[in-house]
């Protein structure tokens, strides 16, 4: 049974339409790569799922109609978002960022410290003083502290040094294997996406154009729709 079901999703930024009919299904414990070129609607799809922008169409999570809920209630249902561009609470320390988001469940400060030891070392440092990679780790840790059923990572490794990207991908792998959490990934690194994802979905011009197992993704398809 699907944890997240998106059917014929349409969304617009004011008068400018951005999504024309996106279909997406994600089962519990599954990792789905959401792919496509820049400006094709990947982040818009995520924003619509999280109710950060208005949308029409089917939008169900764990049996609940998300259209009936405001953004914060969607998060409380169990959708943890790591937004594009990190966006930590910069005036708060690392620990305060995590505590502010904490909800009861298996993920706590110790768990996040275990996943990202660097954050534990900088627990009392203000988020504004962290490096880009550390801020990204904090953004992931903050989403995990909400103890979600589904973790959405929007361009989590964008603009980071290769060694930091490796750390982030290793953490995503650990989250997948150790917790069985469903993950929706948006990223440009096809190699890493292939290694961690079960299935892929490709968006082009606001439509779903391809869905299938990661193993079924051919170089021709990725070249045509993803540009790699």
């Amino acid at each position: 049974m699907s944890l997240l079901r998106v059917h014929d999703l349409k969304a617009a930024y004011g008068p400018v339409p951005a999504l024309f009919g996106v279909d997406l299904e994600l089962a519990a414990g599954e990792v789905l790569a959401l792919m496509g070129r820049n400006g094709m609607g990947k982040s818009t799809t995520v924003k619509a799922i999280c109710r950060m922008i208005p949308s029409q169409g089917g939008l169900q999570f764990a049996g609940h109609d998300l259209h009936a809920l405001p953004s914060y209630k969607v998060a409380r249902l169990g959708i943890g978002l790591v937004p594009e561009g990190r966006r930590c609470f910069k005036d708060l320390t690392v620990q305060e960022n995590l505590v502010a988001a904490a909800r009861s469940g298996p993920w706590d400060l110790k768990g996040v410290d275990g996943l990202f030891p660097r954050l534990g070392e900088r627990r009392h440092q203000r988020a504004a003083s962290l490096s880009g990679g550390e801020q990204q780790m904090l953004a992931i840790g903050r989403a995990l502290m909400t103890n979600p059923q589904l973790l959405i990572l929007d361009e989590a490794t964008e603009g980071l040094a290769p060694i930091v990207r490796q750390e982030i991908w290793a953490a995503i792998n650990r989250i997948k294997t150790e917790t069985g959490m469903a993950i929706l990934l948006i990223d440009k690194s096809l190699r890493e996406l292939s290694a961690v994802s079960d299935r892929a979905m490709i968006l082009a011009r606001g439509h779903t154009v391809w869905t299938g197992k990661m193993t079924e993704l051919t170089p021709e398809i990725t070249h045509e729709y993803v540009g790699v």
Partner: protein
Amino acid sequence: MIRESYINWIVLAGFLVVPLWALSADEPFTITLATRAVLLALAAVGLNIALGIGGLVSLGHAAFFGLGGYAMGILAHHAQTFTPLELGMFTIAGTKSMPIIWLTAIIVSALAAFVIGLLSLRTTGVYFIMITLAFGQMFFFFSISWSAYGGEDGLSIYVRNGFPGLNTLVPIQFFGLCFTALCAALFVHWKLRKSPFGLALNAARQSPARVETVGLNPVRLKLLAFVISGAITGLAGALFADLNRFVSPTMFSWQLSGELIVLIIIGGVGRLMGPVIGAALFVTLEHFLGAFTDFWHVWLGVILLLIVLFARGGVVGILTGKAGPHV
């Protein structure tokens, strides 16, 4: 640079030393001045929860200060005239008991803050400032037209209200009471700032949209902060009216709301002792410069200008070398 915790203790100690010196030097007026500073600080500590942690620039906090004052004034007026207070279907007796008056002031101010906050928090930025100002002015003009309680002339209370075990007419004893209330409010601020609620409120100030993505309702967080803030400012109003044994529409004036914001900015927005330092400076300037000129506010304006331009963290920011939060 000095650690903020040291500054906090030094300021608190200073607030104790001055009235104790005045007591030994037989200077009761100085104790009254110190009490005035403590009560302005208490009102500003209340506002600092909404402004400093929640980023809510309320230009209507005098509404809660005045409500606290009128809660005291009305209850004491009915007690001293031996007339019951008619509240529609209910009739209650007036009282001269401070604990009952404080509780009434806190409840009335909190309820008013809930209603005002519920409506005002539908807006942000300059609209929030304007709507809170409008509510403050509504209370101001209502109190002017409320002839039953003195209208524009206000209400005088002949004898200061009582507190069990204390003679509140003795300045140092009344100061002790007010100082204890200030310490309690500072403790609330300190605990609240580091609590999950305070952290979430701080996060909501920085980005309401981001805070929603972690399952928190920014409006509810800010509303609760506004209610706590209004309740503390209301308590300050009740005590302030007791200090002067007088309550009038000026307690609702927008100038007072502005002064509370100025105190916080001078001391340091969001800093625990920011409002306390601001209030101490304000009363000191008012007393010493006021003796030379009626236009002492000009110098207060110069200080405010310098702080806004060159020291955004206020006096605490200058001493600690750390800027305050961005509001």
